[in-house]
């Protein structure tokens, strides 16, 4: 949607110089000016149709602004402007040329009303008007709109456009649009058969939808042909569905991995049952919120960098809180799991209520930077950017952690202390500080996870609660004390969950996973990757 809109704006800019030479500019301007007096939805609808009927590409700017809710009428003279909101009012622009026309206060401007059915109408009109645009992306968008809302009267226009088209992808889309228009026209049977074949070869969901609605009304051999095309498409889509589920599973797995990896350190390596782990995730998410608030208020240009700035800060904030918890509470409770459990759980309640008091109980708005919005397609596989980045981020965090553990001297100390505390101590390692820093590291990683999770979940005081059970599940399933176990555990639970969900439903799917884990733990109490050696028995 954003792509389409920005493409339209770009087009409008490109068209600006041409529109001056357009003979009908006065007529278009008169039609657009009628928006200023259109008070009801039905009035607006009439004017949209009138503007579309001018066939003047210069009207696209006004129509696109109307669809976006940026077309306003000035009071009391009713002059129509495209507006851009600023803090104390609007900047005004000419609806046809886009020339700046000064500004106006909020009270002086009345929005031209728009709703879904009008947006659809506008989309079709813009599609028809931009079929001959200069930018191939705009032509592609126009062809796509025409493909999805077929209209027999557009066939000639499409034929002309196809003859002139130079870009292969755009031409293919136009041909598909023409085929969909042919299906709703009164053209010959042979032409319709060719159209069905052409659409059937495309194989995406939109086309499937078109063919299904055609099949419902068609008769005789055409109906059979459409039916066979539909069933072929369904077979192909079923395979893509499997790939899609696998991707969803990987994506859920990466979220589980992020949530659990900090716990894999505090619980897995150190053996502390840390019920406040979820709250460390929450602190990370709130850090992201605060960073974004500051950026919004003072440096709006940096918004796309907000997450990169939030990651180290979240690590420090959550890590510092973790350090305080370890030094203040947990170090007195080593070797007493039940007390640790109760104490950390108390800490989690304190942190939740503290955040609720400071930030309020409501969800906080954490925005997606532009590079994390939207999706792209590989064949019929839709991949959303935010999920893809989270998968990559989770793997990066995992790799860094693995490096720290296995390749640095600090990692060596950590492993030494957790495997044999007395031996490590007698070798001159300051075990209390290693404990404190390990716990801080685990908490800091949880904070980083919070930055990522703020992109897909609510930022509320309850954020942590929803992840704590899943985190323990992953760590226990993967095997306590093993980072690789956490990785494999997270991804296998994610994928299993996503393959169960379409059949069993979200509620039952979750229950089935829990049952399977219980059975698995019966069979292998130490999880997938059990730690071996003498230290384990101690």
């Amino acid at each position, binding site marked *: 949607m954003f792509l389409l809109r920005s493409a339209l704006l770009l087009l409008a800019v490109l068209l600006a110089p041409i529109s001056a030479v357009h003979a009908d500019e006065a007529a278009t301007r008169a039609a657009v000016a009628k928006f200023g007096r259109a008070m009801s939805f039905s009035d607006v609808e009439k004017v949209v149709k009138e503007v579309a009927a001018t066939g003047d590409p210069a009207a696209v700017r006004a129509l696109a602004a109307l669809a976006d809710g940026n077309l306003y009428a000035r009071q009391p003279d009713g002059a129509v402007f495209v507006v851009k909101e600023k803090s104390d009012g609007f900047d005004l622009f000419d609806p046809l040329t886009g020339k700046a026309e000064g500004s106006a206060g909020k009270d002086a401007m009345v929005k031209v009303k728009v709703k879904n059915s009008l*947006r659809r109408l506008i989309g079709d009109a813009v599609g028809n008007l931009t079929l001959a645009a200069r930018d191939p992306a705009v032509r592609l968008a126009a062809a796509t709109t025409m493909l999805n809302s077929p209209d027999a009267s557009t066939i000639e226009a499409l034929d002309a456009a196809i003859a002139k088209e130079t870009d292969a992808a755009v031409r293919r889309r136009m041909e598909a649009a023409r085929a969909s228009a042919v299906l709703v026209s009164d053209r010959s049977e042979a032409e319709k058969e060719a159209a069905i074949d052409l659409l059937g070869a495309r194989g995406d969901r939109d086309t499937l939808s078109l063919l299904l*609605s055609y099949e419902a009304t068609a008769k005789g051999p055409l109906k059979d042909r459409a039916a066979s095309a539909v069933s072929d498409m369904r077979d192909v889509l079923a395979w893509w569905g499997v790939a899609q589920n696998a991707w969803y599973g990987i994506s859920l797995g990466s979220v589980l991995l992020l949530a659990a990896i900090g716990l894999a350190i505090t619980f897995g390596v150190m053996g502390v049952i840390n019920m406040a782990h979820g709250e460390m995730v929450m602190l990370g998410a709130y850090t992201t919120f605060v960073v974004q608030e500051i950026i919004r208020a003072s440096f709006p240009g940096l918004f796309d960098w907000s997450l990169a700035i939030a990651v180290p800060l979240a690590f420090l904030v959550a890590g510092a809180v973790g350090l305080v918890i370890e030094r203040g509470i947990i170090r007195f409770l080593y070797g007493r799991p039940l007390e640790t459990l109760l104490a950390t759980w108390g800490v989690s309640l304190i942190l939740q209520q503290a955040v609720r008091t400071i930030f309020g*109980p409501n969800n906080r708005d954490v925005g997606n930077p532009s590079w994390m919005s939207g999706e792209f397609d590989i064949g019929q596989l839709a991949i959303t950017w935010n999920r893809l980045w989270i998968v990559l981020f989770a793997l990066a965090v995992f790799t860094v952690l693995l490096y720290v553990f296995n390749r640095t001297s600090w990692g060596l100390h950590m492993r030494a202390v957790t495997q044999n505390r007395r031996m490590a101590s007698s070798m001159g390692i300051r075990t209390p500080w290693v404990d404190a820093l390990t716990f801080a590291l685990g908490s800091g990683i949880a904070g980083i996870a919070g930055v990522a999770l703020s992109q897909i979940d*609510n930022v509320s005081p309850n954020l942590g609660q929803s992840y704590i059970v899943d985190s323990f599940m992953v760590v226990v399933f993967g095997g306590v004390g093993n980072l690789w176990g956490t990785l494999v555990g997270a991804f296998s639970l994610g994928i299993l969950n996503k393959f169960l969900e379409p059949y069993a439903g979200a509620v039952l799917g979750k229950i089935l996973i829990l049952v399977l884990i219980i059975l698995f733990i019966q069979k292998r109490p130490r999880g997938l990757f059990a730690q071996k050696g003498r230290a384990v028995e101690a």
Partner: protein
Amino acid sequence: MIEISRLGGRLLGAAAIAAALSFPGVAHADDTIKVGILHSLSGTMAISETTLKDDMLMLIDEQNKKGGLLGKKLEAVVVDPASNWPLFAEKARELISKDKVSAVFGCWTSVSRKSVLPVFKELDSILFYPVQYEGEESERNVFYTGAAPNQQAIPAVDYLMSADGGSVKRWVLEGTDYVYPRTTNKILEAYLKAKGVPAEDIMVNYTPFGFSDWQTEVSKIKAFGSAGKKTAVISTVNGDANVPFYKELGNQGVKAEDIPVMAFSVGEEELSGMDTKPLVGHLAAWNYFESVDTPANKAFIDEWHKFIKNDKRTTNDPMEAHYIGFNMWVKAVEKAGTTAPDKVIDAMIGVTVPNLTGGYATMMPNHHITKPVLIGEIQDDSQFETVWQTPGTVPGDAWSDYLPGSRDLISDWRKPMSCGNFNVKTGKCGGEGTN
């Protein structure tokens, strides 16, 4: 997890009681009328209910500035049931028997309302319930100021079926797995079938509370929507799960022009925690929107901003319900000349007060009120714009006309009937509801 949050809730609850008890200590004289506020201030429901607590405090404050009630000042007694259903019953009992409140304004979820019902019946007090709910209930001690299904769900479906709403032919009923969505969807399914929608064009789907991974669900909706018929989603998804749901819809490119989502539990409050640009055009059905342009609403919003000392705080439908309920109670007390629940309950029926959308709300004999139904589209400033509304107000119907068992029941608390579930077939009070 449930155990944990419950115990946690209790601890917090205990702290809140201590706070609540120590607070009013000074004003225990008999020259005040006490009003109980029973909304969760901690736990999962705090997000929605805290606002209603503040709303009530504001309304009581305003009434006191106008000189109180029956020559006495009103005094709010706030307790925190901490999103814990059994605790709601304990707190209600405490409010009625210990604090001797004259009426209670509270509850959000249906479970909490069901949990306090026996207490209100036993101690014969009054509860004002401000949230849209699934219906199938009418109790003497409860006044339902939120919408019944026929004041929200049914008109919303009618709108989507109409040419204005896009002539929708295929329906996804997506809900959180608990009593309100299940009952509402049962009613809607029966209604759609009565309207001639074949069973294969209806898909019902439930997700757990706080669900956050919507990828599969949204792609299921997309697949269901590509059958060549106009498709819409009716969402009874509750609370926190909405944010990731809408984020996923936006990211997967489900546009309102193609598959509109009509929500029954998403209000201004929920949208304020979201970037709504990708959601423009998705719908919600309520009886009030903050954006409604009337003098009464403007005054209410100004007052709210002043009271809460924050210009950014939104108002929402349940807040208006409390506004109506509180004003009705004030009027009924004045009419009865006493706060005795027995007298007030009888005086309530027929009381009419202005609502915030430029009309009037009347308390019906079935303890539900008349409300206009508004359909709004989400705008990019986290507000709704009304695109359709019922010509007049719609009286709330406690018992749905589309469910077997329920369609024969009527409710009338006027004497001599005084019955919440009178069966017109058997001619007896005490017919069966569906839950």
